[in-house]
């Protein structure tokens, strides 16, 4: 690991001012905020991230979960994943989020990992994580060996010819289905970004993963007021029973009245280059009877644009089954 300077921020504005001096908030940034460290320290040990300065944001009092005036929920940036998943309000009103977090990582990691950190979780692509390998995300222009190499775990949706890295987060998939908003304090003030717009597709610039600019500090995430009576489910499919990233996952928030779907918010994990909200699946369902054949049609719609590679073609059908089963199970709940 490269030597670095470590400072503790006492106020958010100060942290933002320091970080704003940096040229980028993306891959290779020299100044990084650190909270739980479960992604960043790991990548520093691998020399994938080599920041010269870490600003600890754990003392910024961003660790509260509070109701908002509008009836939603404000989740602080440094709320630990374990605390978020076990929060009574989250379990009652946003259970898909609790389910998603608890199916990720391990208890020890969830105790350390934070909300903002999870939003910025990096891909598990083995080529990205090994500096001896070419990788367009880590070193723009160096190439993507994954496209013809070991790509079983990699994405089939939102890919480009430069990058097919999967976004590995479970939490973000649930937040996409819950239409979370990400609140950012930056050098020019604060702004709020819907989660659907927060992560970027790789395109020709896979090293740019989010809309964050130098100095931008995620302060909290806001969930809209809960859909009372909605049926929520997170289903995660993987090789082994625990402690593994998703091959395919689905977060669904369904409202059903008189046997018909009145609203559907659907997001997929393990298959996209970003947490994958699927308006195609949603529009295939809304207004339709809540039955197995419509669920399957929605799943087919979700995967229509999938682009499989040499080893990950199975994900297309696996994701279809995952979403179909998630919808069926949620509808029955």
């Amino acid at each position, binding site marked *: 690991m490269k030597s670095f300077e470590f400072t503790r921020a006492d106020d958010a504005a100060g942290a933002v001012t320091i970080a704003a001096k940096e040229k980028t908030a993306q891959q290779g940034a020299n100044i990084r905020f650190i909270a739980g460290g479960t992604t960043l320290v790991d990548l520093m040990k691998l020399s994938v991230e080599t920041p010269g300065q870490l600003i600890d944001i754990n003392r910024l009092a961003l660790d509260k979960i509070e109701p908002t005036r509008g009836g939603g929920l404000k989740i602080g940036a440094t709320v630990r994943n374990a605390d978020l998943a076990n929060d009574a309000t989250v379990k009652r009103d946003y259970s898909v989020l609790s389910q998603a977090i608890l199916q990720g990582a391990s208890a020890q990691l969830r105790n350390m990992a934070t909300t903002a950190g999870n939003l910025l979780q990096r891909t598990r692509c083995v080529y990205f994580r090994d500096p001896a*390998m070419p990788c367009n995300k880590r070193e723009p222009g160096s190439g993507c060996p994954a496209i013809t*190499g070991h790509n079983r775990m990699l994405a089939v949706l939102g890919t480009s010819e430069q990058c097919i890295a999967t976004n590995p987060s479970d939490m973000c998939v649930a937040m996409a289905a819950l239409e979370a908003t990400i609140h950012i304090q930056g050098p020019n003030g604060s702004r709020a970004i819907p989660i659907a717009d927060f992560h970027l597709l790789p395109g020709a610039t896979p090293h740019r993963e989010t809309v964050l600019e130098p100095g931008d500090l995620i302060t909290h995430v806001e969930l809209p007021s809960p859909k009372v009576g909605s049926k929520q489910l997170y289903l995660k499919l993987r090789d082994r029973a625990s402690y593994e990233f998703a091959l395919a996952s689905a977060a669904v928030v369904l409202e059903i009245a008189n046997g018909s779907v009145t609203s559907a918010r659907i997001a997929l994990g393990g298959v996209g280059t970003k947490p994958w909200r699927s308006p195609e699946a949603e529009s295939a369902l809304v207004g339709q009877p809540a039955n197995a054949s419509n669920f399957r049609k929605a799943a087919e719609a979700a995967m229509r644009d999938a682009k499989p590679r040499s080893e990950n073609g199975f994900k297309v059908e696996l994701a279809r089954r995952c979403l179909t089963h998630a919808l069926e199970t949620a509808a029955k709940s």
Partner: protein
Amino acid sequence: MAAIQESSTNSPIGKRTPRVDGPLKVTGKAKYTSDFHFPGLLYAVPVEATIANGRIIKLDTARAEKMPGVSAIFHRENIGKISRAVLGEGFEGITDERRPPFEDDVIRYYGQYVALAVASTFETAKAAADAVRVEYSKEKPNVDTHLKADDEPQTVATTFATLKRVQSERGDADEAFQKAPVKLDETYVTPAETQNPLELHSTTAIWDGTTLTLYESSQGVVNLQTVLAQMFGLPKENVRVITKFVGSGFGSKLFPWTHCPLAAAAARKLGKPVKLVVSRKMMFQTVGHRPRTQQRVRLGATDDGKLVSLQHDYVYTTSMLDIHHEDCGETTAFHYSVPNLHVEFGRAKRNIGATADMRGPGAVPGMYATEAAMNEMADLLKLDPVKFRVLNEPKIDESLGVPFSSRHLLECLELGTEKFGWSRRKPETGSMKRDGLTLGWGMASCAWIAARFPAEANVQLRDDGTVRVACATQDIGTGTYTILAQLAAEKTGVPLDKVEAVLGDTLLPAGPLSGGSMATGSVVPAVFSAADHAIAALMGIATKTPGSPFEKRKSDELTLRDGKVFLKEKDSAAGVPFADLLKRANVRLVTGNGKGEATFGDPKPKFSMHSYGCHFVEVTWQPEIARLRVSRVVTVIDAGRIINPLAGRNQIEGAVVMGLGMALFEQTAYDPQNGAPINASLADYIVTVNADAPQIDVHFLDYPDKELNEVGARGIGEIGLAGIAAAITAAVHHATGVRVRELPVRIEDLLA
């Protein structure tokens, strides 16, 4: 039925015995190799090749050498002489990777060490290693997964011996196959697998100008001593190897790897202790792995299920220079009765790190293939797979023409059938359901060699009433400390808490490798005869010491029981603690040495000696989400006398869990472009986790095999992993209708 019974006597043999070293481990006092520290200790980090085939053109160490805290950057030009080791007598001088590090400029596998950074801290050494710049001339590596035997003569050199590629033959297998009414001809593939013990390989080397002392995480200190003596041209007694605790090895720590002489060479050059801990990534590159195998099995049978022909032709990968033999055919020639048989192997060189033993080498991939074929043949014959095996049970070892020392496979099958409830199995695929899940039931049998390595031991009886037993073998987490203590306690009658077991140091009498499931069987005769000699010395003192209650008696009139010496004809009340006899004679201790000869490799054995067993497996299957899980395993093992049923059960349960990984998860993948083991981390190389562990029901038969040793104990470290993958793939087929013949069984195989 001879299920294990708690011994009713005071004998510690066969008693469920907690590890004698357990308290040290749970309190953190057990010192593993990398826990040892010494004044002036330096840290070494290797620089690894980032190509898999080619040559070093230029090595630029200038930047690294200038970094503060760096002691040296070693490479081919400045490391000093490291010679090759050669195989000697008594299973010594063994290396799987025979080329010493830095011997030439050729790169033959990804991750091969090309330089070594040594510095005052680990972090500095790592930074210096990263700062070394290497230029290569690069060629396309061959990591092709399709295997075709290389063009080699019919007799080839391997690590242990020169072998005929046709390893067993009888009758005319091909003709019998052609004429057989029912035929099966299938090819089975097992992937490269990496051992991944929790404890990383590590070496701390200390050179004092004369003597090399090596702290090493090793499954064989005696062999390591010989190898290092050869590599550095030292008298054997000038090399000492110490291994007190091992965080498991699974075979990867049997023989020395290249990090070990590198640390020693650096210590020699710098005159300071040097520690080298291999990284998890290097664990996938430079310390061995189970080779990929491709095995064609042809079976011919009569309509009523009698085997008439068995052909097992297999190919496995080797590295470019090495000659590890993956003996997939080890059990093929004797396990079933068949008049016509042909077993033959070939090898395919690849740009990969040296292949090596991994728990159950040979028989584990081999029996996956042969047992999977037996299951498929049973299906073709519409016979129950248990019944098919019973029909083909041999009376003798038909390959050697000698009787089995102790074979109770039929009883294993009978007990397993009963405990699992196998009679309720419906043969149609997908026909069994429970709680909305589809069930699959499958089974397979297993076998594993029983043999002894040479072993020596020393036993002392001391005047404080304690006993010390010493042997330069290792405890790799399996309970060897406890076994040694139990054996010494058995002979002397001293309770376990008064027995000190000492191992893992080449200053002690030469002990066996912790491998081949042979350590326990090998130490029994050595410890027993050492104890006999110590007891004889005690009796001499008892009968010759003036004033002794046994003065003027003859030694053979006396006996040692429960730590007391008795006259054989008197009742127990007249016993005298041996400590009292020693004190009266002013003797601190009496000592005895014992020795057991090797049986491993005996070309003309009188008996065919193996352990046997069977696995019955239930999987659950949810086609709607392609989710397959193993829910239940019943395993029955016939491994002779079980000295410690607690540790024994632990071995079998661990093997079942590992077997689940072999069947469903584990696979080392090589990047097709650059040849790197590409999933070289515990996140990307999927092993079984706790949540995958099924309900496991282990039963031992308890038939002592006195042909192997006095206790009748065979080994149990590997047998549990043989056959389990075939039982799982049979259960997968039963549940899903999909026949997978290439491990691991993956979700994508079952999605159709």
